[in-house]
């Protein structure tokens, strides 16, 4: 086991509900993330956010990021982030969407520059940050290329770099493993872990239905589901039904965790859980 300490709450979701038309999509979601501190190590966090297709993961994702603003009409509750727990607003959480939209009319450098301008007003500092992140993400040779000249993996890295440059330590990733072969999944997993560990307060929320890949890199798992009535019928309105602390279970921060029997037992537990959601 590793020594660690859970400190301040850095993301808090309180009573978040969403109604679209007559449909209750989300209902009374309450979760929080605490900063995990490990002595001598820069340890970011990865939250795996699982749930069956069509349950409302993307809508929750959009509420977390401020894309759907809390308006006290159909979108209720409170989402706060950072050590001061300030209300979330669009732009304060980085969002990496599934198909990695970029600005196709800008070069890779231009894509990063337009995003870095939000936080770094000084041109020289901005340039240094961009060149540093290009190098870290092995994109320095592509800085003058346009997005349509990149492979899927390179686009993903640019999308992550772009959001890192403008957001405040929080990144939401929508289905980062979707449509990838096992080798690419491994590469993307390594990238997510690397990005999380770039800064102590970095927190990455991975929304996915790939249980295995998500659980392998996460230190916390949220499972979204819906309640059922006495007849077994689904009650509308998804919520976080289960939360697993993988650090406590000894299943976090271990390389090649996928090959251990205890991970497989946990994976089976999660998979069986899906049938009840």
């Amino acid at each position, binding site marked *: 086991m590793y020594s660690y300490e859970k400190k301040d709450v850095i993301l808090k979701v309180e009573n978040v509900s969403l109604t679209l038309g007559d449909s209750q999509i989300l209902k009374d979601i309450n979760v929080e993330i605490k900063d995990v501190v490990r002595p001598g190590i820069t340890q970011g966090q990865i939250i795996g956010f699982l749930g069956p297709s069509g349950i409302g993961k993307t809508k929750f994702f*959009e509420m977390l*990021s401020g*894309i759907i603003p809390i308006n006290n009409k159909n979108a209720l509750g409170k989402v706060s982030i950072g050590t001061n727990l300030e209300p979330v*607003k*669009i*732009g304060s*959480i*980085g*969002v990496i*969407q599934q*198909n990695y*939209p*970029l*600005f*196709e*009319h800008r070069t890779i450098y231009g894509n990063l520059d*337009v*995003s870095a301008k*939000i936080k770094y007003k000084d041109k020289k500092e901005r340039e240094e940050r961009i060149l540093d992140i290009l190098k870290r993400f092995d994109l320095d040779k592509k800085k003058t290329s*346009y997005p*349509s*000249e990149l492979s899927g993996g390179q686009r993903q890295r640019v999308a992550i770099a*772009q*959001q890192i440059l*403008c*957001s405040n330590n929080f990144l939401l990733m929508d289905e980062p493993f979707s449509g990838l072969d096992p080798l690419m999944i491994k590469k993307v997993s390594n990238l997510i872990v690397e990005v999380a560990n770039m800064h102590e307060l970095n927190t990455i929320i991975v929304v996915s239905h790939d249980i295995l890949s998500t659980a392998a890199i996460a230190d916390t798992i949220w499972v979204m589901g819906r309640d059922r009535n006495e007849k077994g019928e689904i009650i509308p309105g998804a919520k976080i039904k289960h939360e697993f602390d993988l650090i406590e279970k000894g299943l976090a921060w271990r390389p090649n965790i996928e090959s251990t029997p205890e991970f497989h037992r946990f994976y089976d537990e999660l998979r069986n859980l899906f049938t009840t959601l």
Partner: protein
Amino acid sequence: MKKIIDLFTPNKKIDKSTFLIMAFGQLLFVLCVWIFMAPDLIPRPLGILKAWANLASTGGLIQDLYISLKLCFHALLISVFVSVIIAYSTLLPFFRPMGFIASKARFLPMIGLSFVFTLLSTTGYDLKIKLLVFGMSVFIVESMIKIIQSVTDNEYNHARTIFGNEWKVVYERVVLGKAHEILSAVKQNFAIVWTMLTFAEGLVRSDGGVGAMMLNENKHLQLDSVFAIQMSLFFVGILIDYLFGLLRSTLFPYADLSIKKR
């Protein structure tokens, strides 16, 4: 034999030399049909060439072509300006009905509006400009609105997570992001001006122009000359199309990258 089968296989890529031979063969076939099988009334290529030389040397074709091109580009500049304002303003809910009506105005026949435009104009040139601007703008607005609406929610949301401010989002995603498509829409719709030119120049023949020239030659059944003018417009049109393409690839080098990949 395989190369011939390839020519009739969907999406088959053929090499450049095969393509050139095929295109030359098709051109030769059309010329043969034209020369040997077309009705006697239809002028032959040699007659058209002679008529073109005659019009160019003594008939004032070059001057009239210049007059018409100047008119067309003047009208195009105003049309683009008007269309951009109308189309971009549809991003604001207040102006959406105006954009909708402007794009639907393309169903109005020009002939029915010529009297209204005559009343609104002070000179013959002014009348022609107004007619061409109206005729082109209604089509350009329609294309531009479609381009603006083609920005997906995902693309907007991506820009929102970076800028936060909706004006900046629109500037980045629509104004900058779609500029190359807007230029393509202008290029595609510029051809419409040729179809309206005869009508507009026919109303004010005193200013000259190839439209007026074509109507005069048609009136006297000088079909060789009519075809010669048509051919001039055809080749000028191709040249303008090419220049628009050149402008697009120079201003927006990213525009065709994904197409080339396909």
